[in-house]
């Protein structure tokens, strides 16, 4: 499934995040990293493959992965 023209955004809702570190540890491509303040941040968003594992494993309902087609 070629997804070259798909754009993605990982939204992390900081008010609900409890900094458990599950999303950044289990991100298969290393897109999400743990910042110095302890909160996760999608620093390397270009690496995101849209697997949604961060969203599925977030115990706090704090992550949403948005996907949309890039307009040419």
């Amino acid at each position, binding site marked *: 499934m070629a997804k070259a023209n798909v754009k993605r955004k990982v939204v992390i809702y900081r008010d609900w995040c409890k900094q*458990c*570190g*599950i999303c950044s*540890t289990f991100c298969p491509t290393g897109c999400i990293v743990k910042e110095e303040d302890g909160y996760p941040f999608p620093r390397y968003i270009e690496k995101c493959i849209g697997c949604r594992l961060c969203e599925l494993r*977030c115990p*706090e*309902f704090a992550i949403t*992965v948005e996907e949309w087609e890039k307009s040419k």
Partner: protein
Amino acid sequence: MTTPNRIILDKYLRHNKKFPHIWCPGCGIGIVLAALLRAIDRTGWTKDEIVLVSGIGCSSRAPVYVDFNTLHTAHGRALPFATGIKAARPPLKVIVFTGDGDCAAIGGNHLIHACRRNIDITTVVVNNYIYGMTGGQQSPTTPEGMKATTATRGVIDQPFHIAELAASAGATFAARSTTYHAKELESFILKGLEHKGFSLVEAISQAPVCFGRRNGMGDPVEMVKREKELAIPISKTAGMTFEEKKDKIVTGIIEEREAQEWTDLYAGVKKTAGEE
């Protein structure tokens, strides 16, 4: 494509409740609840026809946060209340969200009798091996040798395996998964919801503060990694002895069969008695 979390949360959470929720940082109950919400979203049922029943405990806080018909009942008595609802209003979809202490200890008898009746209820058991809310006492599923506040030198009792217990008590669907396998857990819950008859899905979860900290398992991340290492699919356990399987988490569908459902039989009884 999977529905984004945002849409599911908008639809199913009670927005007047205080968030973030009360569970400890990294606790797996949130993962199980999210899996349940996504599974419910995939069934296409409306919110009005779903009843979520729970007892007492950490996991039983879940109905407070979700916008279905919800019932927060006495300790261990979620299944009797759910049975009553199902008997009175068979078209309702009754789901029980419970924990290991609630379901296997004080509600153990209720569990096996609900299984025996094969009444159309879906039970999601969050098994985190401990009584979390009351401060980490030993539960019937705490593995041998693990420490708890009421077993400071290590547990000497053998643990229950809830899914196998339910299957042998007569449940027609029993499955087990972990919070690491969140996607698989969601598919098992979906199968349980669509199954006609009593279905039980046991979700092995991490309790980082009450269980992990006391047993030197480190942070929630280490505990989820441990689940990944210990999990073994049921298809690979064919030639294994009990001793070999004891320390593993056997995941997969343990029981799936068709049998007469209780509310149908009860409707038949009512008919012969001339009530309807």
